[in-house]
């Protein structure tokens, strides 16, 4: 038998359960996150209209650039202020 060393990050996060899905959006706050890809705003504008028509509170957020992960402060702000978040990913 021989032994080799693991080249990976050995992260193996403990399995995380998804948060329970919300049965309805009434009375909840929905965050809309634009990652700064072209036309993400068009998609999110329409979502905001639809949600607003249903009387659902909406908050808009934007990443400074799509090429980097979201700043920690932004993630914290969304988690603090919203019940769910919808992210517009691609152009």
């Amino acid at each position: 038998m021989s032994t080799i060393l693991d080249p990976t990050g050995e992260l193996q996060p403990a399995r995380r359960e998804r948060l329970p899905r919300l049965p309805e959006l009434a009375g909840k706050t929905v965050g809309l996150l634009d990652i700064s890809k072209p036309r993400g705003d068009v998609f999110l504008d329409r979502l905001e209209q639809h949600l607003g028509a249903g009387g659902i509170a909406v908050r808009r957020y934007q990443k400074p650039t799509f090429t980097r992960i979201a700043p920690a402060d932004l993630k914290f702000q969304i988690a603090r202020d919203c019940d769910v978040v919808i992210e517009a990913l691609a152009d």
Partner: protein
Amino acid sequence: MTPIPRGYSGFLLVVKKDCNTCQLIETAIAELQRSGALRVTSQDDPQFPAGVRDVKDDRELEQSYHLNIETVPTLIACQDGVEQERLVGWSREDWRRLTGIPSLGTDLPQFSPGCGSRTVEPGMLDKLAYRFGDTVLQARRIDVAEMEDVHELMYERGWSDGLPLVPPSEDRVMRMLGGTSRAPDEIVGVIPPDQALCTVEKVTINAVMAGCKPEYLPVVLAAVEAACLDEFCMHGLLATTYFSGPIVIVNGPIINEIGLNWSTNALGQGNRANSTIGRALQLVIRNVGGGKPGGVDRAALGQPGKVGFCFPEREHDSYWESLAVERGFAPEQSTVTLFAGDGVHGIADQKSREPKSLTRSLAMTLRTVKHGKLFGDASAMLIVTPEHMRVFREAGWSKARFREELDKCLNFDGSELIRGASHIAEGMPESSAGRRLTKFGPDGLLIVHTGGSAGMWSAVIGGWAATGAKGSTPVTVAIKS
């Protein structure tokens, strides 16, 4: 362990049976033990030497390793647990002096050189350093069964870029670590996309797999460090659907110290350092960071250089200051520069003998980087070969002069570049109409001299579509030993 017993006063002798000198002096060893304190350690046979009591069995070589034995026999005089003097091989005169026995080895020749200690057999020191040394490797051990093919195992675990890997055994990793003075647990950076903390040890393991030699390790470490800088934006570079990957350009004395190829086929295959350093960086991103094609790497096409792309500048006969000097480093400082780039696009110009003509030629291709109508946030690296460099040298054009003239050739009326112009929908926004636009922004064009001395070609390596603050900026870091 402490190799010399605490408080011990007397002699330690390390021998092996498979040594003519050790066999030759067998009787003298027994004589020495009879006359006083002597502890004998045998590297290969605890029954040897005959007639000696309590021979220490050191077939595992732990004591020999800690005593730094390079030759057998080695006789060490100790006082209160501290080494006073050591003799290697057999010299009757020296042994008599050190032991104080004037009649020692009367029947023996005056002198007989020793043999190599088993600790210095090829590859053995790395194994022993791993087993008995102070260096502790933290990585998880993976056992490979006798019947298992280690190469297939590495493929199955997803560690490979598609090409075979060198198995990262403990002794290979230890040997590779010898290439740096940095501690194995030192953090080099946070590797995207998993934002994994990456130690010197993890870089070392991946450098072994990539096929690096220990002397390349400082370059690999610097490349990983550079890739983790925020302005290089490795996360986005990995995730993009565009072609680009990290390209490593090496400057400074280390180029020749480790044998990087700046001559014929400098951007091609066939040189171990060129081929493995860039690969090691990519394996770190793949294995430590978790960045894999089809996962976070979303490239529509990619390009062959994403296996690894590293080359040095041809510095010794360049008429221009090197890339690193241009970027603020001293010529004697070895550096790596990382550029987010694509494949190589050749430019043929065998007719230009004066610099204005050649500059216009090069500009024609540089204009097309990304798209012939997209200006301002494009980036590129221009590789000038020695034969094209000669044209600028003979005309006395400095690098700054060339840049200035090149910018003039890459300055266009925005009306020709806007969306819809030339019946092409792609282009600059309407607001560019009537303005003069230059192809590359600040830091948007890197210029490097490299390659073989024959061939009136140069090359353009297009940069990632996302450049500058919103994407990637080239980064240069010093290589530490």
